[in-house]
């Protein structure tokens, strides 16, 4: 180990900061709830721009063999085929085009028939780089599983947090996570970004990342609850957030650096996925600090964490309610 010189890292973060996060908890909490309500409203009004996975129909990515693709000519040609509205858009380079054929009325066989028509019309001028056809049965199943996956992911996480901490922590986590999912989905709805199966994967990953953040803060809160038995709860929460702040920012920065690299160089196919992840990391970090922890301030939490060991020795059961500090009422 002598090979590597000893040098200290650049400790960029000022220590013993006491940023008063909890002072503005009411404001942050209110804004977050507002953001959730607005997201819900946007989703209700605008809906999602579902991709082929959820809407059914066909998607063909083609590359022109003769230089730049003539989108107008292609649009004219394909819209005359009688397969409903055909959407055509550029995709990445000038010779790349994405063709979307809407779901055909009828059944599964009609989707294939429409695809065949479009493929024949494309001829040899375009190479087909990707073809996706999802029939009505599969698309409705995928919509259902997508929804269930997010809900089940949420529940699995909450069950774990409940098991490891107290119900107040679990409640904080569920509100924070719901916020993350709703706001990310709301942004996708607002800008009508394509919402497909990979976005569901992104939402699940955001859940994972955000709860990771929440757990780190919660862990520190639990530790400080044992350490500072007499500290006022809001103050204690604030200390905990500040103590973990350097970690929160550093991990967030690394994750962002990697995600930005993926977004910029990872290719067109997973661009939306990466965008969702980028949004999620920012929103997830925010929610652990400004939603999950403040909620504990409102809910109050059992202060006597030595109770567990007392209970083991059989002296007393659960800490009495009088011992709970309800900070919200103070």
């Amino acid at each position, binding site marked *: *180990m002598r090979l590597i010189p000893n*040098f200290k890292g650049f400790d960029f973060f000022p220590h013993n900061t006491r940023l008063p996060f909890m002072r503005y908890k009411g404001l942050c909490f209110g804004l977050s709830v507002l953001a959730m309500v607005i997201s819900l409203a946007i989703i209700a009004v605008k809906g999602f721009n579902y991709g082929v996975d959820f809407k059914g129909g066909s998607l063909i990515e083609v590359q022109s063999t003769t230089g730049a693709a003539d989108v107008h000519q292609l649009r004219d040609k394909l819209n005359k085929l009688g397969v409903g509205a055909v959407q055509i858009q550029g995709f990445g380079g000038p010779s790349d085009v994405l063709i979307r054929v809407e779901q055909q009325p009828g059944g599964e066989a009609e989707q294939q028939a429409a695809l065949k028509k479009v493929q024949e019309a494309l001829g040899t001028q375009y190479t087909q780089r990707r073809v996706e056809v999802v029939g009505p049965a599969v698309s409705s199943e995928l919509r259902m599983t997508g929804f269930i996956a997010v809900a089940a992911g949420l529940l699995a996480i909450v069950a774990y947090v409940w098991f490891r901490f107290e119900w107040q922590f679990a409640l904080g986590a569920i509100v924070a996570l719901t916020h993350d999912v709703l706001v990310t989905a709301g942004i996708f709805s607002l800008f009508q970004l394509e919402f497909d199966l990979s976005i569901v994967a992104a939402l699940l990953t955001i859940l994972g990342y955000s709860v990771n953040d929440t757990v780190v803060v919660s862990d520190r809160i639990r530790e400080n609850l044992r350490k500072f038995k007499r500290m006022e709860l809001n103050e204690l929460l604030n200390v905990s957030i500040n103590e973990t702040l350097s970690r929160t920012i550093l991990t967030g920065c690394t994750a962002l650096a990697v995600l930005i*690299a993926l977004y910029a160089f990872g290719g067109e196919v997973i661009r939306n996925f990466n965008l969702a992840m980028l949004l999620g990391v920012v929103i997830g970090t925010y929610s652990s600090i400004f939603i999950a922890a403040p909620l504990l301030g409102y809910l109050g939490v059992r202060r006597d964490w030595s109770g567990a060991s007392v209970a083991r020795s059989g002296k007393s059961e659960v800490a009495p309610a009088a011992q709970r500090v309800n900070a919200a009422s103070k």
Partner: protein
Amino acid sequence: MHFTPIKQAAVLLTCLFGLLMVVPNFFSKETLAHWPSWVPTRQLNLGLDLRGGAHLLLSMETNEVRKDWLDTVRDDARRRLREAKIGVTGLGVANNAVQVRLAKPEDADAALKELRGMVQPVGNLLVGSGGGDLEVKKGDGGLLTITPTEPGIQQRIGNAIGAAIETVRRRVDSLGTAEAQIVREGRDRILVQVPGLQDTAGLKELIGKTARLTFHEVNRDVSATEARQTRVPPGFKLYESGVRDEGALVLRETPVVRGDELVDAQPAFDSRTNEPVISFRFNNSGARKFGNFTKDHVNLPFAIVLDDKVISAPVIREPILGGSGQISGNFTVETAHQLAIQLRSGALPAKLTIVEERTVGPSLGADSIEAGKLAGIVGGIATIGLTVLVYGTFGIFACVGLVVHGLLTVALMTLAGSALTLPGIAGLVLGIAMAVDANVLIYERIREELRAGKSPIAGIDAGFTRAFVTIADSQLTTLACAFVMFWLGAGPIRGFAVTLTIGILTSIFASVTVVRLLIYYWLRSNRGLRRGAEVPV
């Protein structure tokens, strides 16, 4: 902070194992073939989205399976009652059941006993018998109904799917592509994955047809037009024509011979007209049935029916006793070739419809790999740069841990045989972020403990111990999420979940144990470290 020599060896050997498993990925398949057999030569599987290929999800028309079974039950019931000399006035399929009307209601008990002999037990060795596959009930006035039970239908569908998978495999193999994966999905679906295949049109044509070939006797008394206006005689059925020049025909419903008695079918050319035909050969029992039939029907027409459509109705010139013949049916060279493959591979038990198709061309796959590599390199440099900048010498240790993490993740994926997909690459990246997070948690904690005045060794030790609780908690919650994704997820979500899970599991070893070992070595080589001395973090 102590490692016994055994522990050190275990950690180092694990890292070496990861390295050995990853090495084959940097060589071509040809080079690997020359390696000695004890060296690992397995390479990481690439998903269809990265290497290119076709993915088709087929759904079976289970109603056809049900209908076929009812037809068989009906024929069986008729035969049994005839052999038992019980007269019937009506016997047919109605309301998803076979209904039998007896000539004499007093025969009901005898008939019931006879028909109950058809019932087969359902179930397998493990579960045991779950009742019969049919239910025979007595109604009023000599009416008997034979209804398939739900377990019976499930079993029939299961068998049909199994048979269909075999048939599809034979047809796909005829395209000359290796490594095709054909598996059952859910209750009535089949997933076909053919890596490297570009022309999906041919594949779809091949598996899109049931290819059920039957040879029927033609009814000479009733023409198709008459049959349309009046009634088709019992036991006969009107078959539409599948070829333009041929008219519809009234044929006996039970065929003389079926396609499953064929032993061979080849595309050929007719020696006189030179048009494409299919020459075929029956097995012994098929040849005997066909021979007997043609002997009795010289100078009369018979019909060749494909998927319930008449494709040709030649006149029998002389008895065909050798069991071979040819079918002409306005084929092109292409369709004759295709039909020959379909006939050789056997008929599908029921029609398969494509409910999902995902095809990726090889050029897009290669582009995605390149993009993934570039993003990985840029992201990796950014991560390493940031870590070394913030944590100094210990940051370098963390980066070594990251490399081990990457090696082990790829090694485990190779070992598990799970394919790397595009979302999987994203999962890998997230795994790296999780691994970095573990180190950040540890190092921040060490700094905190040192600031609180602990000695270097005590501070480092406390940092690892305290941070580990948090790391375990945060990784386990993400793991819970990954399990849900795997359990519920379809296609891309599942690939992502697998890499994420493997990434989390290896990150605990790589970022905690490996880094800890490196710091242990560092401590040993800096024995002079006194209380208050600088810890390079």
